[in-house]
């Protein structure tokens, strides 16, 4: 047992040494990650916490696009969770994920820009999809834009965010997406209520900072339990404000 502990400690030192000795400028083509952490009442959620929450999270997924660090657009790696300019963050049914050993399905942005590690600047992104992608036929779209439960069929667009949780025996559903749309799909549509939210995270230190998602800010909203995207509805307005202003914060792990 002690022997194992030693190995673990030694290897941790080794990893941290590697991290400290990392070259300042990474090379082009190297894959970088920006991690997202789900927080509840300022505490990072671990699987073991899950039963203790006063709310049961059924779904928390959202699309981000136009992701920039120090005003430079990040070139996203194409994979199941990302196209070259869109990423789906997926904390859906965290409890079920936990049974499979992880808190989430996808909680990171992966990109390939050459980056200065340790540089402190603003990380910005937009919640939602750009209009030119929003009205495409989802069954022909690449992953993650092909997921039927992130599509808002009746509005011929996507759900930019779907948050569903049970609290005080009430099921709360917050779906956000572009509304008040007219024109012809897929390419000639204008939406008067785009419902895309621009988020700026200052003091983000590349390589050392993470983005916290303060779930309690959304779950804490005293809502009527249902928002289908219309900002004129009271429940929507409260959730949208909380999502834009209070939910995302950068945190430096150093």
């Amino acid at each position: 047992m002690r022997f194992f502990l030693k190995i673990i400690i030694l290897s941790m030192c080794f990893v941290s040494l590697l991290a400290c000795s990392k070259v300042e400028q990474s090379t082009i083509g190297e894959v970088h990650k920006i991690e997202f952490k789900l927080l509840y009442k300022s505490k990072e959620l671990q699987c073991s916490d899950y039963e203790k929450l006063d709310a049961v999270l059924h779904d928390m997924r959202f699309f981000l696009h136009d992701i920039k660090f120090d005003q430079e657009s990040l070139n996203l790696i194409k994979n199941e969770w990302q196209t070259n300019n869109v990423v789906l963050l997926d904390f859906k049914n965290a409890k079920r994920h936990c049974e499979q050993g992880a808190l989430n399905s996808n909680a990171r942005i992966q990109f390939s820009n050459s980056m200065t590690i340790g540089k402190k600047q603003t990380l910005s992104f937009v919640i939602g999809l750009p209009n030119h992608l929003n009205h495409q036929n989802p069954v022909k779209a690449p992953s993650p834009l092909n997921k039927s439960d992130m599509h808002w069929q009746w509005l011929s667009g996507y759900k930019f965010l779907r948050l569903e949780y049970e609290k005080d025996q009430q099921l709360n559903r917050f779906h956000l997406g572009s509304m008040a749309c007219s024109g012809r799909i897929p390419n000639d549509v204008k939406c008067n209520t785009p419902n895309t939210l621009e988020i700026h995270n200052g003091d983000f230190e590349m390589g050392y900072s993470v983005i916290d998602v303060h779930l309690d800010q959304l779950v804490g909203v005293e809502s009527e339990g249902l928002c289908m995207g219309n900002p004129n509805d009271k429940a929507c307005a409260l959730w949208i404000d909380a999502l834009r202003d209070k939910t995302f914060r950068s945190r430096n792990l150093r």
Partner: protein
Amino acid sequence: MKSKLSLGLVAVGMFGLIVYQTHNNKDYSVSVPEHFPELPIPVDNPLNKAKVELGRHLFFDKNLSINQTTSCATCHLPEKAFTDGRAKSLGALNDRHPRSSMSLANIAYASSLNWADPLTEHLERQLLTPMFGEEPVEMGMAGKEQQIIEYLSDQQPYPKLFKKAFSSDNPSELISIDHLAKALASFQRTIISGNAAYDQYLLGDDSAMSESALKGMQLFFSEKVECFHCHGGFNFTDSSTHSAEQNFVKTFHNNALYNIDGNGAYPKDNTGAFAITQNPNDMGAFKAPTLRNIALTAPYMHDGSIISLEGVLDHYAVGGRTIENGELAGDGSKNPLKNPFIKGFELSEQERKDLLEFLDSLTDEAFTKNPAYQDPWE
């Protein structure tokens, strides 16, 4: 009398029988009546026989719902001209849809789909709502694409039908939601109704319609009753298009059913095109459905709130319905957004009978019994 009838009607044919034009597509042709425009088929989804056959299997397959209770045909029964007889349709999990099921007769020609949806023009897109939609749940398959594909890969005769229908496509993507949608849309495009007594009359059979129905037709196309403004053309709806048409005309009408706040409001779950555009002028604006087979599709209106055709005539005769009490109370005839053709009219008892007789002459019995539209699993 016939010269008057020509108003709004297409040219009368010389033949006693319905002559069909065929739309050839290599190995397949769909017959549409001679007096119908050419069938619009999207360039990226040409018809073929296997695709239509596959679509028919999918259309009637309850395994494509969350609890194996509901297929497309559950709400679109051939014997009711592809409606379900309910005021408001019922989803697989007993969600009550806010609206009534629409007939699929001649749906290929519709310039917009759903009751009040200016964005959805193609069947390939429309069917994603009943399959995957969650508000309300209809078939309840949101997030279950993989499950569908596994089912279709295992269940005969799907694998061979997919192979035949999409032979030119990449074999690794043979069974996909895209192909499912294309096949279902193709089947729906073959649902053609154009052999009612009215059609037979139009094409030269003078005995096909009764005297009363002919008088009713005159009324239907008259400025007195004004039905034809919204329910005109070969498909008795102004929401239709055909392959030669370049500009899609999407029309929606407020038909004076409600006026909840005096400013034209409709019930919250049925605000018409407003729900999508949020344009105040679109409040209560719905598509004029086809009147073909209308005698088979009761109850009527987008929300099934009028149980009979007699009731529909009453509603239009007074220029809009008044609801005296309750949360929906209001004088629809004073709805500021109502279509100006809904101005009311007076009919004698005989004229009412004639008009109803004409509407009956739009029923196409052969259509509802067409073996090409029946359940292949039975």
